[in-house]
C-alpha cells in the first residue's frame, strides 16, 4: 500500500513537533531540577549558619568577659588570702544574694598580705556592683578596714604589673 506524500510529510511534521515538545519539556525538567538542587543547597547553608550562630551565642554565654579589680585594703593589720576571699564573697552574698554571688563569678586571683593589695576577678557586667559591695565592707572580725579599688583591667598580666609598680 502506498501512502500519499502529503500524509507522510504530515506525519513527519507531527513527529518532529512532538519530539520538539519532548525536548522542551526535558529541558524544563532539567532546569527545575537544577533550581531545586540550588534551593536545597541554599536552605542547607541557611540552616548551617543558624546552627553556627546558636553555637557562637552559647559559646559567648558560656564564657563571659572578665575584669580584674586591683585593690588596696587599709587595715589595722595584715589580712590573709582566706580572710579576704571570705570577706569579698560575704559582701556580695549579703548585698545581692546567692544568685548574685554565682552570676558575679567572683574569684580572688591573688592577695599580698604584706601590703594588703591584691587582684580580684569578676564578671565584666558585675564590676560596678562588686565595687559597691566591697565599699560596704568597713570591718572584719572586729577590725576596722577600708577597701579601695585602684584600677580595673581586662587582663591579669596588667593587673600584676600594676601591683608590682604599687609595691
Amino acid at each position, binding site marked *: 500500500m502506498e501512502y500519499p506524500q502529503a500524509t507522510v510529510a504530515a506525519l513527519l511534521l507531527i513527529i518532529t513537533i512532538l519530539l520538539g515538545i519532548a525536548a522542551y519539556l526535558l529541558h524544563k525538567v532539567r532546569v527545575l531540577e537544577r533550581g531545586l538542587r540550588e534551593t536545597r543547597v541554599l536552605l542547607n547553608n541557611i540552616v548551617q549558619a543558624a546552627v553556627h550562630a546558636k553555637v557562637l551565642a552559647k559559646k559567648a554565654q558560656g564564657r563571659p568577659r572578665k575584669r580584674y579589680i586591683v585593690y588596696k585594703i*587599709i587595715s589595722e593589720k595584715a589580712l590573709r588570702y582566706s580572710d579576704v576571699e571570705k570577706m569579698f564573697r560575704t559582701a556580695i552574698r*549579703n*548585698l545581692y544574694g546567692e544568685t548574685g554571688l554565682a552570676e558575679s563569678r567572683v574569684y580572688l586571683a591573688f592577695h599580698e598580705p604584706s601590703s594588703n593589695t591584691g587582684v580580684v576577678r569578676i564578671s565584666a557586667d558585675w*564590676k*560596678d*556592683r562588686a*565595687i*559597691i559591695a566591697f*565599699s*560596704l565592707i*568597713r*570591718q572584719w572580725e572586729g577590725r*576596722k*578596714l*577600708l577597701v*579601695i*579599688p585602684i584600677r580595673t583591667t581586662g587582663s591579669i598580666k596588667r593587673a600584676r604589673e600594676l601591683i608590682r609598680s604599687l609595691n
Partner: protein
Amino acid sequence: MFCDLYIEPRSPREASLMAEILRRSGFRCVGLADNSYSMAADIFVQRGFKVLRTIIIEASDERDARSRVKHVTKDAETIVVGRTSDASVFRFFSRDGRVDIVEASRRTVNLVDRNEAVILRKSGSLIGLRMWLLLKNPRNMAWMRALTTRIFRYDIPFVIYSSAKEWSQLWHPRHLYSLFQTWTGYGRYAYLGLAMPTYGENAFK
C-alpha cells in the same frame, strides 16, 4: 580635687588618719563638724586642706527650725546643713537662704520634685546625700537611689558627704562612681557631688 563637706573626727589621732586617707584619695577640702573644728582644723590645714566649718541643724517642727537657724552665726567659711524628717521643715530649709545644704531622708524623698528644684535654685541651696546612712543600713540604698534619680530628673544641685566619725567610714571617689554608675548610668556625676565649693565672701553661693 574633691571635698568632703562633713566629717566629725573624734580625736586628734583619728583626724590625722582621716586627713592622710582623704589626701591620698584626692580630697583637698573638708567640712569639719562644729564640735571637732577646734581640735582638728590645724591638723587638716597642716596637710594642705581647705577647712570649712559645718553646722548641722536638726529640727522636727518649723518653729524650732526657725529659732535654730536664727541663732546660727555664719561667716564666709561656715556651711549650714538642715536635717529633718518633717515635710514642712524640709520646705522651710529649702526656702531659707541661710541653710546651704538640705539633707534628704527616707521620709522626704518624695518632696524632691520639680517644685523643690525651683525653690532650691531660688534660695541657692543644695540637696545633701549623707553616705553614712548606707553604712548604717544597706537597705537605705533603695530610697537613696530614688533620690538620686529625682536629682537628675529635675536637675537639682547636690552634694555628697561621708559624715564619717572614723577613718573606716570615709568614702573613696571610686566607690561613689560605681554607685552612681549603677544607679543612674552616669558614674561621673558622682564627682559633681564631690566638687569643691566656691570661696570668697559667700563660701557656698
